[in-house]
């Protein structure tokens, strides 16, 4: 496997983007969506996630290490492409470019988001509850920063799911790839709705 390091790394990168990172993203936005049902409902859901057994190990092996690996290799991938959407304005070429741009935006967003929430909670300066997020998102600038960050992350996941299906050789024919495109568009809108709806709840209380 040593002589096929690049192949192994790229396949691991593709796998980690869906399992566990994509699954975590979906789960995270579903749990957050409990905020829409009220402050108490969100605190119960967040409290449940926070009291899972081996929570720190789960965080390290399902969230931090996979994201770190995916991000470092991802930045390298994004900067080794020579973007040519101006010359070749095909739909998939735009998706190719957007996949890399949203990846970089998502990385900036995640670093800030983790610093502002998980790190502050870890240092004992904040509690993982409704009021923490309400405090952040009632700031107009932070609200829009979160909107851009969440939509970028969901786009990167939905479009990444499409390339995952190709990279693992599941969708081969143009027809199956086209149907996968439609399926991923539905995934994008459904998960974006969860994320954006939650942000509106925290920011405006509606």
């Amino acid at each position: 496997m040593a002589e096929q390091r690049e192949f192994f790394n790229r396949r691991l990168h593709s796998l980690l983007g869906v399992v566990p990172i994509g699954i975590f993203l979906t789960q995270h936005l579903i749990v957050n969506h409990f905020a829409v049902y009220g402050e108490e409902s969100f605190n119960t859901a967040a409290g449940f996630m926070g009291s899972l057994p081996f929570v720190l190990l789960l965080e390290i092996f399902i969230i931090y290490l996979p994201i770190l690996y995916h991000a470092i290799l991802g930045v390298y991938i994004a900067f080794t492409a020579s973007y040519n959407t101006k010359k070749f304005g095909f739909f998939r070429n735009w998706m190719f470019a957007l996949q890399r741009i949203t990846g970089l935006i998502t990385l900036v967003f995640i670093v800030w988001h983790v610093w502002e929430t998980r790190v502050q909670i870890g240092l004992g300066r904040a509690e993982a509850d409704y009021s923490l997020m309400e405090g952040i998102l009632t700031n107009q600038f932070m609200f829009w920063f979160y909107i851009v960050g969440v939509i970028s992350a969901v786009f990167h996941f939905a479009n990444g799911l499409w390339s995952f299906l190709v990279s693992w050789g599941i969708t081969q024919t143009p027809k199956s790839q086209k149907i996968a495109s439609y399926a991923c568009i539905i995934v994008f809108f459904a998960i974006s709705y969860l994320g954006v709806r939650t942000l509106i709840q925290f920011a405006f209380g509606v």
Partner: protein
Amino acid sequence: MAEQKTVRFIITRQDSPDSTPYDEAFDVPYRKNMNVISGLMEIRKNPINAKGEKTTPVQWDMNCLEEVCGACSMVINGTPRQSCAALVDTLETPIRLEPMSTFPVIRDLIIDRERMFDALKQVKAWIPIDGTHDLGPGPRMPEKKRQWAYELSKCMTCGVCLEACPNVNDKSNFIGPAALSQARLFNSHPTGEMNASERLEGLMDEGGISGCGNSQNCVQVCPKGIPLTTSIAAMNRATNIQAFKNFFGSDNAH
């Protein structure tokens, strides 16, 4: 007699592999049904640029003149394609000719496509049949398979797919779509199949199939309409299965 109609060509020229490129314009006498190559031949006959100055004839590569050899690829009005199949009557004027930017320029419009042939070596895009004795006839090929494999065999290593691919550039070692599809062609052949794993190992080496980022420009620009992205996805599946066989062990990992 009416004044001779002319066609303006604006050509990106380069005197040597390391010199700076520059544009030069030419007014070529128009003939009915002329293609870009017959325009270049006129310039070679009478190398005088649009300013009326004598200059060196423009150099370009060509061979078959019927869009099967791939040698005369260049960027014509922004689109990489074969100059033999580019009819002047169908092009907007002035006609802009540039060498394909993915490849090193040797002179003017001549580029060096050696990297494509190196890529074919990496994936062993041939069928080894030479031996010390006659091996007899090979196994037959199902007709349905022959039909799609024939489409893949139309590849002429012209380099247009590499020119369009955002992942083929100086910063990456990706070998490009053409060789990935050729590995599939030879793996689909009943005799070539016997060395299938060697080609898959070539695809899994540095610069191989994992360099594909699914921008799918290749399939859009291929002058032969080869289903390159289907080939890439098929080889993705085959290399993944090969990787599992190699790691976990299999009697069919040969």
